[in-house]
């Protein structure tokens, strides 16, 4: 399995080989520096126009009526009262001509759910939609739609979904697919050879993406041409789905992304809202704005599935792993069969072990569909694997860092033993421990009154690090030496635009403030895959570099004629071209006659293929110190260090931002976040607000967070040497906290989030 498969619908199309020779960068002038974002002013001043800011003349406001029940049949929908209300311009349901659209399909391509569903399989399933002159009138109209539901029994606990008495979510029952099996070596022999065995069951919660900007769009028709301003991680996936569903040529669907207020994987594809807005706009002949409410985003815009994992690991006295057995269970909700997507990857790939068996099972429940969430599967797996490694170290009386060092893998075992293009896991562990002061912190006195201190660490890797084709970028070099960079990728807040501009500046010597960026617009930029999977920099930066080099080469060719010197003897020097051997031979670019006649040089860059037979992964090790109140079970995270091998650091400031953000998100998984469904009485979500779905705030995370880049040189992964960063940074965090709590208290908590209630109970039990 490749991570790309997880994010894309089909095989990735290839772009042509780049035509330019791209030597490895030596010293860089711009790339790597901690430069401020090119759009910092727009973002902090409020002048950046996010899709939810878009206001068009005559724009209507839409809202969606959703099933309040996790499982119900719509017997009757009566819309006449709503239609007659002031300001209401359209009401659509599954009975509206043109709105009976198939939305969810199974693996065989059969329709299993519609845009508006008469058989509602989760709380939040769309039943009807309205467009009105004001958002208030739209909400009022929703209340006036009368729906008669036949409320049906539900299944909302994934752990019991396969029991015979559990109500079926789909016609074929609740098993989503045959269990997935991965096997290598001889498991029984491996456990026979083991001198210590640790076996435990772990649970991680269902987490929600909760980006600051809700999901939604503004849609406008001009004749048979549709323009959509969408809050998205990828304008092209939105374009293709909308075009397919509405039967339009791709060229007639323009999707504009520009800014996006966070996505974390939940905005990789369009939502029903995109198509509903387009239908309402077509019916009313007016632009329509449809953004979900916060509550809707929590119910039906994706989640990280909850997982139950059983993990059994055998090892020799010296710490060498002999066998690993993993079983994972999860649910992608009612409409996704993927509750355990790439859940077992680190078991297969992170530590050297010859005998491995992983099984995964997926079930349906009556809940909203999952969507990939920052490093799908990996933080969950880490919660199990890294706690077991910690426990093993404890039983073997080995330092946890040392145990991991004794089990480093030299090849990618999960991919049949092919080599990595680079592997800095050892350095992450060793240098991370050194910088954190691991040995000293572990030996420090632990407790004082009710407060106990402890330190913990965890390692990790992310399945995909190289990025890959396709990507096409265009660089236009204008007569005055200013540049327009044109690329299709979205900047999801990670600093994509800044990094890409720095690549151009590196190759062409143009200052950043002379570079303008055109991006994330299907009408004016080139095809790009969605920004996700930690692959935006490794995918698009090589294409941008190729485009800049294409410009560079064309400029030298023109100057070569002017100076009568071979292009290979020339170099760019600011806004001049000079002969390498003879600085007297120079010409200002604006004086190059060929360039003067054309006024612009257009460079096109393609992303070449990845090396064959090699794997590229980012590696990570994180360390933390916590303080546990032994009476109340409160856990305070005092400090964190993230040591990350993501290859080249493209911009130290945006790099560190990713590390901080990933750790904050991991603290949420470890300590506070979980979706709670009322599995007993109603099947509905109990914490449908930011009040009760608890994301750590700035005051709940440590100020003391250190980012330690382990900048391994990777000359093979791609032409800029950067591996993915955005996801690995959140993989080991929660497990490191659990291990630190154990170090402080001697108590292991196998279920995330690490709940103060449970910890206090365990502490009290032990004291009694």
């Amino acid at each position, binding site marked *: 399995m490749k991570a790309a498969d997880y994010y894309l619908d089909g095989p990735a199309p290839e772009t042509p080989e780049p035509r330019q020779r791209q030597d490895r960068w030596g010293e860089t002038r711009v790339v790597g520096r901690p430069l401020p974002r090119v759009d910092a002013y727009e973002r902090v001043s409020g002048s950046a126009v996010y899709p939810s800011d878009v206001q068009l003349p005559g724009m209507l406001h839409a809202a969606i009526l959703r099933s309040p029940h996790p499982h119900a049949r719509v017997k009757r929908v009566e819309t006449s009262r709503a239609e007659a209300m002031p300001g209401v311009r359209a009401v659509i349901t599954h009975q509206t001509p043109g709105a009976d659209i198939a939305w969810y399909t199974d693996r065989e391509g059969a329709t299993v759910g519609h845009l508006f569903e008469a058989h509602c399989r989760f709380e939040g399933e769309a039943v009807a939609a309205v467009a009105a002159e004001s958002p*208030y009138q739209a909400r009022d109209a929703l209340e006036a739609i009368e729906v008669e539901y036949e409320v049906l029994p539900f299944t909302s606990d994934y752990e019991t979904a396969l029991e015979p008495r559990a109500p079926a979510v789909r016609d074929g029952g609740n098993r989503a697919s045959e269990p997935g099996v991965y096997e290598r070596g001889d498991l029984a022999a491996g456990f026979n050879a083991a001198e210590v065995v640790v076996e435990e069951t772990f649970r991680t919660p269902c987490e929600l993406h909760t980006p600051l900007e809700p999901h939604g769009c503004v849609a406008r028709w001009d004749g048979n041409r549709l323009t959509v301003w969408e809050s998205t991680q990828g304008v092209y996936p939105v374009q293709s789905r909308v075009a397919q569903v509405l039967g339009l040529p791709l060229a007639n669907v323009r999707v504009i992304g520009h800014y996006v207020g966070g996505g974390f994987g939940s905005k990789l594809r369009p939502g029903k809202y995109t198509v509903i807005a387009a239908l309402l706009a077509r019916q009313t002949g007016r632009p329509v704005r449809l953004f979900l409410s916060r509550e809707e985003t929590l119910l039906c815009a994706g989640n990280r599935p909850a997982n139950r994992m059983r993990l059994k690991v055998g090892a020799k006295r010296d710490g060498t792993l002999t066998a690993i057995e993993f079983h994972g269970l999860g649910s992608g909700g009612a409409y996704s069969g993927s509750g355990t997507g790439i859940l077992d990857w680190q078991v297969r790939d992170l530590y050297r072990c010859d005998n491995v068996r992983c099984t995964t099972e997926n079930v349906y429940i009556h809940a909203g569909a999952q969507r990939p969430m920052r490093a799908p599967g990996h933080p969950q797996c880490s919660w199990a694997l890294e706690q077991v490694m910690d426990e093993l170290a404890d039983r073997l009386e080995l330092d946890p860092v040392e145990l991991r060092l004794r089990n480093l893998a030299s090849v990618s075992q999960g991919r049949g033993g092919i080599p990595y293009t680079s592997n800095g896991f050892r350095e992450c562990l060793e240098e991370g421990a050194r910088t954190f002061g691991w040995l000293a912190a572990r030996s420090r006195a632990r407790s004082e009154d009710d407060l106990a201190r402890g330190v913990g660490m965890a390692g990790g890797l992310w399945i995909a690090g190289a990025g890959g084709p396709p990507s096409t970028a265009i660089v236009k070099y204008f007569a005055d030496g200013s540049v327009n960079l044109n690329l299709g990728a979205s900047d999801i807040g990670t600093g994509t635009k800044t990094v890409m501009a720095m690549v151009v500046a590196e190759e062409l010597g143009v200052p950043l403030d002379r570079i303008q960026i055109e991006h994330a617009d299907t009408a004016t930029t080139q095809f790009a895959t969605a920004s996700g999977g930690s692959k935006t920099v490794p995918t698009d930066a090589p294409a941008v570099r190729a485009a800049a080099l294409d410009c560079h080469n064309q400029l030298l060719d023109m100057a070569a004629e002017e100076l009568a010197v071979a292009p290979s003897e020339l170099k760019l020097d600011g806004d001049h071209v000079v002969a390498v051997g003879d600085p007297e031979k120079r010409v200002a670019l604006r004086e190059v006659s060929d360039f003067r006649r054309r006024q612009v040089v257009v460079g096109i860059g393609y992303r070449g293929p990845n090396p064959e037979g090699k794997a590229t992964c980012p590696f990570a090790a994180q360390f933390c110190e916590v303080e546990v109140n032994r009476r109340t079970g409160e856990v305070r995270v005092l400090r964190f260090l993230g040591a990350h091998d993501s290859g080249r650091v493209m911009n130290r400031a945006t790099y560190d931002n990713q590390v901080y953000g990933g750790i904050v998100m991991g603290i949420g998984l470890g300590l506070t976040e979980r979706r709670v469904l009322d599995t007993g009485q109603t099947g509905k979500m109990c914490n449908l607000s930011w009040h009760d779905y*608890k994301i750590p705030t700035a*005051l709940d995370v440590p100020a003391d967070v250190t980012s330690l880049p382990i900048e391994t040189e990777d000359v093979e992964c791609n032409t800029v040497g950067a591996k993915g960063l955005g996801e690995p940074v959140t993989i080991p965090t929660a497990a490191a906290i659990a291990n630190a709590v154990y170090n402080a208290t001697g108590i292991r908590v196998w279920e995330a989030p690490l709940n103060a*209630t449970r910890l206090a109970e365990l502490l009290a039990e032990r004291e009694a």
Partner: protein
Amino acid sequence: MKPAPVDYVAAGSLEEALSLLAEHGSDAKPLAGGQSLIPLLNFRLARPTLLVDLNGLGELSYVRDGEGGGLSIGAMTRHSALEGDPRVIAAAPLLSSAAGFIAHPQIRNRGTLGGTLAHADPAAELPVVSVALEARFRIVHAGGERWAAAADFFVGLLTADLQPGELLVEVEVPPMPPASGWAFHELARRTGDYAHAGVAAVLTRENGACSRARLVFLSLGDGPMRARQAEQLLETQGVSEATIDEAAALAARSEIEPSGDIHASEAYKRHLARVLTRRALNEAWRRAGGAA
């Protein structure tokens, strides 16, 4: 979310506010800081037809010296003012300290003393403090006024002793007796969250003994929960490590009515009540000049 249609009047004077409220009865709601009322409207859980906005009534926002060292505080005084006002910090440190536990700065800059008392949320800090300090409330309606004691004012879950047409306009906080110490402790999952459990304590020391004890809990029942038996135990048996333990255990066992929720079980809340009470009594007694 968006509220249902509602009319709005910015009252220009207290008289105007009172006459509008009298005219519209239970269909009207006074709007103070809006930090509870606006969410209720947006979720469409409350559907008044008229909002009478009190924010223009500067005359309801003040802190004045009251009788015998106490304070008189106007209903529209913001939580952030209580937190930072030197007179409140000096004369009613329990009040200013507890105000700092309410939510986040943005909310404290809008939320008002009158609003939180009228809203009577069992998880709110200031109702509990008002009971512990034996505050009195001046309540007016078109053509009259009355006084209510904090102890009688909170009648049930989100229910205060206020009739349609009535406004709480002033809070009178009596001075703490001499040689008194106070403490406020609570525990929430995140900074600024409503607490799983919390407690306010006031202890008065006379000749080494405890002459008066006040112990009131938040988030552990339908309203402020006063632990009278625990108070009595301290008043009759004095304050020592042993009596503090005993009082904490007694209060946690039989003087609160917590219910479990998705964030904390009932047992955990009782456990917290006990831990927090011990902390609070120790601290209050130290502040009163004693040593447990």
